[in-house]
C-alpha cells in the first residue's frame, strides 16, 4: 500500500519544498519531545479478555495511515524515531517520479500514452545477450549436477555470509576485465552483499559513528541519502561542483567543506565518491585520484569509491579505478574502500549482487560479519559463477554493451541538442546530465520543479531533477537513455518539445 502525495502540495507549497517540509518536521519533532517528556505509564483498565463477547467486527482492513500519523502516535503503540522519519510520505521528486512511471509505464504498442521512464538508471540494451546465455546454459547452472545427480545440498545449506569463494573469484576476474585489465582484484579482500545499496550502508556502519559525516561531491545519486543516513545516523556534507568546469571536483572545495563542518563540531570520517559519476557521468582523472588520496591522508579520513558504472563506458576517456592508483603508488591503502555491483554493468539489479572491496583487514573483518544481514542468495551465486566464468560470453557482452551505449548516448544527446538542450561532457553511465535551465520560468529550485512537474504530468516523461541530486545550480536534469529503444527517442524528444513549447513562447515574447 503506497500513498502518493499530491504533486500540487509538494511543488506549489508556500516557501518551497524546503520550508514546506522543514516546518512540519520541526513541529512534529517538538511535539514528540513534548510527549516524551510528559508521557507517564498509565495503567489501563483490564484489557478485554478473549472470552468476553465483543461486537462482531469485520476482518481487519488496512486503513490509510499516513494522514493519521499525528493522532495515532498519541496513546497508540509507538514506533522509533528512526522509523517515524522513514514512514513519512516520500516528498522527493526522485521517488514520486519513479512511482508515477511504474504505475503507468509506457509501452510502444500496448500503452503509447504511458509515462516514459528516464529516471531509473537501468540498462536494457543487452538483454538479448543475457537471455540467449540463459537459455543455452541455465539447465544445470543453478541446482548443479554432481556426477549427473541433482544436488541441492550445495546451495540450500548455510553458505559463508560474505559470499562463496567461487563467486568472489569470478567477480574479481570480471571486475578486472571491466576495468581493462589494469587492476588485479584479490578475492580475499572482497565481501559480497545483496546489492551495492547494503555495501554502502555497511561501509558507513564500519567507518563512522552516529553523528559523524561524509563529504560527498554534488550532484550525487539521490539514493545516497537513504544508503548513508537512514539507519546509521551518519550525515552527508555536500561539496558543490559547478558547470563552469563541467562539475569537476576540486580539492579547494573539499577542503572548505571539511573545515566548515569541523567548525560546527561535526567529525568528518571520509569522502564518498562515485566514479564514474552519477548523475553527471564524468570520470575522475588519475591526477585527481592522487590529489584525493593526499587529501584523505592529510585529514586522516577514509575514501569510499563507488565504481558501479565502471563497465558502462561509452566515451574515449580511460577509466582509472582507485585500486589502480593504489597499486602503482605508495599510498596508505587502509583508508580506501571500493564499492561495485552487477546492477548496472550486467543489468541484473534484481539479483542483488554487490561488492565491498577493501584493503583494510579490520574493515573487512567487521564487514564480513555484517553481511549476515544482507547476503547474496545461493542459487544466484551459483548462476553468476557460471555466467561470469564464461569468458567468451563476457567478452562479447562487454564489447556489445559499449557499442550500444555509445550509439544510444550519441543519438540521445544529439536529439536533445536539436531542442537546444545541451548536456554536460560525460564518458560513462546510463544517463546524460541535461541543462534545461533556459526552459525554466525562474532560475530557482522552484522553477526547476515546475518544469519537472510539467515534463512528468504533461509530457509524461520521468526525469530526475537536479535538486533531488543536491545540485547547486537549478535547471539540470538526469535523463537515463538505456531503457529506451532507438525508436523511442523521437517520441521522447517530441514530448519534451510539447511540454515546454508554451514556456519557450513565453520566454521569447518577454
Amino acid at each position, binding site marked *: *500500500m503506497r500513498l502518493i502525495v499530491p504533486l500540487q502540495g509538494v511543488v506549489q507549497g508556500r516557501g518551497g519544498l524546503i520550508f514546506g517540509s522543514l516546518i512540519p518536521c520541526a513541529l512534529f519533532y517538538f511535539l514528540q519531545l513534548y510527549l516524551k517528556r510528559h508521557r507517564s505509564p498509565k495503567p489501563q483498565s483490564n484489557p478485554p479478555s478473549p472470552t468476553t463477547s465483543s461486537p462482531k467486527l469485520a476482518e481487519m482492513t488496512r486503513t490509510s495511515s499516513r494522514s493519521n500519523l499525528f493522532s495515532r502516535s498519541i496513546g497508540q503503540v509507538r514506533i522509533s524515531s528512526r*522509523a517515524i522519519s522513514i514512514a513519512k510520505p516520500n516528498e522527493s521528486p526522485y521517488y514520486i517520479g519513479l512511482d508515477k512511471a511504474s504505475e503507468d509505464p509506457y509501452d510502444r504498442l500496448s500503452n503509447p500514452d504511458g509515462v516514459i521512464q528516464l529516471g531509473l538508471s537501468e540498462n536494457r540494451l543487452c538483454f538479448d545477450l543475457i537471455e540467449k546465455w540463459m537459455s543455452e546454459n541455465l539447465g544445470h547452472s543453478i541446482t548443479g549436477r554432481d556426477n549427473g545427480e541433482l544436488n541441492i545440498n550445495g546451495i540450500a545449506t548455510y553458505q559463508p555470509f560474505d559470499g562463496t569463494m567461487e563467486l568472489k573469484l569470478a567477480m574479481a576476474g570480471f571486475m578486472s576485465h571491466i576495468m581493462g585489465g589494469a587492476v588485479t582484484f584479490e578475492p580475499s579482500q572482497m565481501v559480497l552483499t545483496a546489492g551495492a545499496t547494503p555495501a554502502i550502508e555497511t561501509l558507513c*556502519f564500519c567507518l563512522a559513528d552516529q553523528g559523524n559525516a561524509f563529504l560527498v561531491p554534488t550532484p550525487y545519486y539521490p539514493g545516497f541519502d537513504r544508503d548513508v543516513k537512514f539507519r546509521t545516523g551518519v550525515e552527508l556534507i555536500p561539496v558543490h561542483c559547478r558547470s563552469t568546469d563541467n562539475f569537476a571536483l576540486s580539492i579547494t572545495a573539499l577542503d572548505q567543506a571539511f573545515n566548515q563542518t569541523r567548525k560546527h563540531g561535526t567529525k568528518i570520517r571520509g569522502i564518498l565518491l562515485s566514479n564514474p559519476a552519477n548523475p553527471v557521468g564524468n570520470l575522475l582523472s588519475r591526477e585527481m585520484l592522487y590529489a584525493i588520496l593526499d587529501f584523505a591522508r592529510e585529514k586522516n579520513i577514509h575514501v569510499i569509491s563507488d565504481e558501479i558504472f565502471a563497465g558502462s563506458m561509452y566515451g574515449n576517456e580511460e577509466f582509472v579505478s582507485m585500486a589502480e592508483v593504489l597499486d602503482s603508488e605508495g599510498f596508505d591503502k587502509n583508508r580506501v574502500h571500493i564499492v561495485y555491483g552487477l546492477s548496472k554493468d550486467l543489468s541484473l539489479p534484481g*539479483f542483488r549482487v554487490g561488492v565491498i572491496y577493501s584493503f583494510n583487514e579490520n*574493515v573487512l573483518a567487521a564487514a564480513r560479519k555484517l553481511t549476515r544481514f544482507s547476503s547474496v542468495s545461493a542459487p544466484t551465486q551459483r548462476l553468476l559463477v557460471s555466467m561470469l566464468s564464461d569468458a567468451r560470453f563476457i567478452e562479447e557482452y562487454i564489447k556489445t554493451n559499449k557499442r550500444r551505449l555509445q550509439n544510444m548516448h550519441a543519438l540521445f544527446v544529439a536529439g536533445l541538442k536539436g531542442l537546444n538542450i545541451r548536456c554536460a561532457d560525460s564518458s560513462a553511465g546510463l544517463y546524460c546530465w541535461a541543462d534545461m535551465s533556459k526552459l525554466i520560468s525562474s532560475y530557482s529550485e522552484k522553477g526547476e520543479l515546475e518544469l519537472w512537474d510539467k515534463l512528468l504530468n504533461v509530457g509524461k516523461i520521468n526525469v530526475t531533477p537536479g535538486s533531488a541530486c543536491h545540485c547547486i545550480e537549478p535547471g539540470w536534469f538526469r535523463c537515463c537513455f538505456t531503457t529506451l529503444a532507438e525508436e523511442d527517442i523521437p517520441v521522447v524528444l517530441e514530448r519534451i518539445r510539447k511540454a515546454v513549447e508554451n514556456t519557450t513562447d513565453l520566454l521569447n515574447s518577454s
Partner: protein
Amino acid sequence: MAIEIEKPSSVRLSKVAISKTHGEDSPYFAGWKAYDENPYDEIHNQSGVIQMGLAENQVSFDLLEKYLEEHHEVSSSGKGAPGFRENALFQDYHGLKSFRQAMANFMEQIRGGKAKFDPDRIVLTAGATAANELLTFILADPGDALLVPTPYYPGFDRDLRWRTGVKIVPIHCNSSNNFQITPEALEAAYQSAESMDLKVRGILITNPSNPLGSTIQSSVLNDILDFAVHKNIHLVSDEIYSGSTFSPSEFVSIAEILRNRNYKDAERVHIVYSLSKDLGLPGFRVGTIYSYNDDVVTTARRMSSFTLISSQTQHLLACMLSNHEFTQNYIKTNRERLNKRYDMIIQGLKKAGIECLKGNAGLFCWMNLSPLLNEPTRQGELELWNIILNQVKLNISPGSSCHCSEPGWFRVCFANMSEQTLRVALQRIHKFMEQRKVCSVNQ
C-alpha cells in the same frame, strides 16, 4: 581477532566495527571453530567433531530435489523472453506479488488454515536475521530495550543489538514449569528494565522456542499479548520453526490468538518467518516480516532495500510454493521425519541416562546435563562443555550462551546430519556416560 594497538595516524573505525556485540568470541561460536578445524565425515574423518550446534534441516532435501527435477522450467527463471527480463530488472522492495502470495498461502497451510495472511502485509528480507534486526530498528531507538524470554537463540544478542544500539532485558524462565513464560516473570523483567532507566519497547518471543524445542501454549500467548497491551508495547513473534512442529495441532500462532480476538490490539503484533528451517533453504536467504501495523509495513518495506531477496530466488520459490500438492506433501513428510529423528535422539539419550525437556518442535532438543556438573555454575557448565567438545567430539550449545538462568542445559541439533551420523553421536554419548559411571563408582 586481535585488536591491534592503533597508531595515532592510523585511520579510525567506527564503534560498531570494533564492538564485540557480534558475539563471535563466545563458546557458541568457538565450538563451530573446533568443528571447522576437524569436521566429522562418515567416510574420511570418523573421529572428527560432529556438528550438533547448527540448527539446519537436512532431512527433506530429497523432496526439494524431486520437485526441481520434475519442474525444470522453474529454475530457469522464465526461459524464453518475457519472464526473464522483468525478473532480472525487478528490484522493487514490495517484492514479487506471486511470491508474497505463495508465502502467505504457505504460512496459512502450516497453521492448518487457522489463520489468514494478507500478501500485502508481507515484507521480504534476506533471511530472518535481517527481519529481526529490521523490526528492532523500527520499534526501538538506541538505548531502548526489548524483553526476550530466556533461554534464547544466541544470535539475538547480535541481531537485535549490534547495529541498532537496542538492549535486551531477559525474561527469566526456569525448569520448574518447563521454562514457560509467566506473567510474574514478564512483570519482573519490565521492572528490571525500568530500574535500569531503560524504556521497554517490545517483547520478542520465539514460537516454537529455540532452544527449548517446544511450542508456547495458547494461554501463555494470551498472557503475553495482554501484557503487551497493558504496557502499550510491541510483540514480535518469531515463528521460524512453525512448520517444524511434529504434530500440526500443537502449534498455536499469535495470528490465531489475534483472530480469536477479532484483531483487537493487532497493530502492536509482528510475525517473523523464514524458509531457512522449515524448508531447509538457509542458503537462499528468504525471510519475511508480517505486520498488522501499516506504518511498520511501510517502513519495513523501505528499509528492506538493504536486504532484498534475489528476484531469481523469489521467482523460483513462488513457483515451488504455489504448487499445492508439493507443499502439502512436504509439510506433512517433513513433520514426520523430524518427529522420527526426535524420537530417535530422545530414546538414545534416555538409554544413556540423560533426560531432555519434553519437546514437540524444532530441529533440536534441550538436554539436561546438570547432574553431571562439578559445580552448579556457569563455570561448571563450560567445563563440561569443553570435555564434550574436545573429548567426546560433539559440538553442542551450552545453555549459558542462550542466557539460561540454570546451568547444565544444552541444545543438541539432530536434523543437520544423516541418521547414521546421529547414531554415531549417540554411541559417543553413551560411551561417555558409561565412562563417567565407572569413574564415579571407582571414587
